[in-house]
């Protein structure tokens, strides 16, 4: 198992290199010049643009720029300097990524609690009123755009009831609305996945056996059924969490959360190459780590898989 983990971690190195190369090349061939953008829609002068290009090191050939990026990263751990704020990219990521992690953790946690409970009950009481209503709500949850739901929550809880702050991310109170916004839509997906996975398992013979030997219904459901239905649920949750590592752009914008998603979108718009490259690297790394954790969790959910991890 440990060997497997080490091997997976080592495999991250070529993956990261590949990601860097792809992102670097994509940014290189995308039209748009960061110097021109920084000078604004109103333009500057030719000399101003040239001066900025020089400052940003944009005059060097492709291979030199890519080499410099990799060399600075490997030798000094330096991701470069943000064109816009002139802060080190590592500092910008350090300011934004923790917020993204917190938001991901809270919202996925909320989604798991709501989604799994809802899914189990729906499966156990299949075709009941509860099941139908819950699944209809789940459909609503997945279909409702996050930014709209976020605004509605803000209008109610911040303007009319004045219970919660409308935006920002400095205290737990600030995190409730965004976490609920993202959490409910994820919960809907998880609920549907849990339900279908549970339904499959509940029809298996060993469930009848468990009931026949006199196990209480709650033990049958949680230990015998849920544990065997976990793999697809873990996969869904893992993917949700992994995607969240890239930030939730719309939710972050609505609630003015300094997260990595909004930072990336702004950076892409401004052709802020260093931030895009650094950000993608961190997101890719986080995504890979989440995948690894998901794989390890599989082994706990289904011990048969453990033997394959060599």
């Amino acid at each position: 198992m440990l060997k497997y983990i080490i091997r997976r971690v080592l495999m991250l190195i070529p993956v990261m290199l590949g990601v860097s190369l792809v992102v670097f090349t994509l940014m290189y061939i995308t039209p748009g010049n960061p110097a021109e953008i920084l000078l604004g829609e109103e333009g500057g002068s030719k000399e101003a643009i040239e001066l900025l290009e020089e400052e940003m090191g944009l005059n060097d050939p492709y291979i030199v720029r890519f080499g410099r990026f990799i060399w600075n990263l490997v030798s000094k751990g330096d991701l470069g300097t943000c064109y816009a704020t002139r802060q080190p990219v590592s500092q910008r990521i350090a300011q934004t990524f923790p917020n993204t992690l917190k938001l991901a953790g809270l919202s996925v946690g909320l989604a798991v609690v709501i989604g799994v409970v809802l899914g189990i009950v729906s499966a156990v009481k299949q075709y009941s009123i509860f099941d139908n209503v819950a699944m209809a709500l789940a459909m609503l949850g997945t279909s409702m755009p996050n930014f709209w739901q976020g605004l509605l929550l803000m209008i109610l809880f911040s303007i009319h009831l004045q219970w919660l702050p409308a935006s920002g991310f400095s205290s737990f109170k600030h995190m409730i609305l965004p976490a609920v916004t993202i959490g409910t839509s994820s919960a809907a997906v998880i609920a549907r996945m849990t339900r279908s996975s549970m339904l499959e398992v509940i029809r298996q013979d060993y469930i009848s056996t468990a009931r026949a030997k006199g196990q209480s219904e709650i033990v049958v459901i949680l230990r015998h059924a849920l544990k065997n239905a976990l793999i697809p649920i873990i996969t869904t949750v893992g993917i949700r969490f992994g995607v969240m590592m890239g930030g939730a752009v719309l939710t972050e914008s609505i609630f003015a959360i300094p997260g990595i998603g909004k930072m990336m979108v702004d950076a892409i718009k401004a052709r802020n190459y260093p931030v895009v490259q650094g950000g993608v690297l961190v997101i890719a790394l986080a995504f890979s780590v989440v995948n690894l954790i998901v794989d390890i969790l599989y082994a706990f959910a289904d011990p048969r898989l453990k033997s394959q991890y060599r």
Partner: protein
Amino acid sequence: MKTKVNRFITALLVMAMFFALTGCSGTPADDTNEPGTQGASTGEEIVSSKDTMTVAIDREPQSMDPTATNISITCTIVSQIFDTLLDFDPDMNIIPSLAESYEQIDDVTYKFNLRKGVKFHNGEELKASDVVFSLKRANEKPVSRAYTQEIDMEGFETPDDYTVIIRTKEPYAAFYQSLCVSRLSIVNEKATLEAENDVNSNPVGTGPFKFASWTAGDNVTIERNDDYWGETAKLKQVVFRIITEQSSRVVEIESGGVDAALVLPAVDYERLEDNEDIDLELYTSHYVRYIAFNTTQDSLADKRVRQALNYATDIDTIRDVLYTEKGAQKATTPVPPGIEGRHEDLAQYDYNPEKAKELLKEAGYDNDLEISFTYLGNTTNTLMGEMLQEQWKDVGVILTLNPLESGALTENANNMRQEVMPVRSAYSIGEAGEGLMKLFHSSNHGPGGSRVNYTNPRVDELLETAKVTMDENERNEMYREVQEIVHDEALMIYLCYEYTSVALGSKVRGFNPIPTERIDYSTIYFVE
């Protein structure tokens, strides 16, 4: 259990939708706590002990380095931390700032007497050498150098620590105005030399506020400078919160989460005005919005086509729909009101599709003119494009929409590839020449920022002569002539002069904005 939760949420959402749709401005829970103070702007008010102000701003500042600022919010923040030699008052008159007095010695020589005992935030005293250093430094930086180009970099003299002599390369009419822009703020030579790379994270100025912190994507915080040379600020701290989503800024000011919100959507003006807890300030600022015709494109090089498109556009409708009646003024010339040298007697082209058709026919087009509208792909611009499409169809012009994101748009425009494009231009020194030069002088095509890319030797000559003409009346006469030519040539469709909007909590006093969109926070305070 989940259903209950979900039902509850659904119920709440339905309620929320109801409130939103009916535009109910509600009675917030704490309304009863403070009766009788609303709308009272008489002398009876008691100054509140509240001394922290939170301001919702619309975007990330570019930098804390004054030389790297060209968007209004960055200039505003930087101008709280730094001072310039001269400054504008809210009526755009030039007033002394770090220079206590100043005089013009000859056509190109100016003498500035610095205020004595002015301390930088690091404790150093302001010296003449700091002024020279700051201006030389600004001349090296890409964004600020546009404002130092007229200064003779070899011509500085510092007879003593409190006197600076500055020379311009040739006579320059708008010299005093150019010294007021935040890009030419005076920085501390020692601190800046010691840590050039840190100017951004630790700016040292002489302004009424000191820099405290900047968390990218979240906020910039400044604190009062108790040793300020002028009147010390009334607020102890100002927190600029970066809230890029405009509807979120509106929610924040409505919920009382912030004390001021900048750049608001025009559709919300009415609701905000009806709210007793909010004062909506709308004021003229030095911006003009227009639709630029790129005259280097074949079809648009023909004056008749440009005039036809002006006649084919029902601009009043477009303006009212996009910017609302409350939000913008009718525009008749590229120079916004309140700026010296503005031509007051021009009229906008009337909406006359018949005349447009005639002109197009004359120019050789018979329902077969195809033009593309290149724009930054946001809601307002898309709507504008669709309205133009509809209106121009009536005169037989086919308009294709070409939305781009900002990076591609700038590249496109700098390479003069666009045909028709909506633009917003600023007059940052409150003087007609600066903007007209940028928009219509032939040296400013493409990267220079002109989107009409117009070439006319007469216009070039007028602009160049006006720039070095010290006599105000003569100069303004030349600027008026330029505006007449430009109007006749129909280089653009004037959209509007948009008002700048700021929503303030009703307890905020001392708000004195400057038309360049700068706000002085040192005069602001709260009342009970």
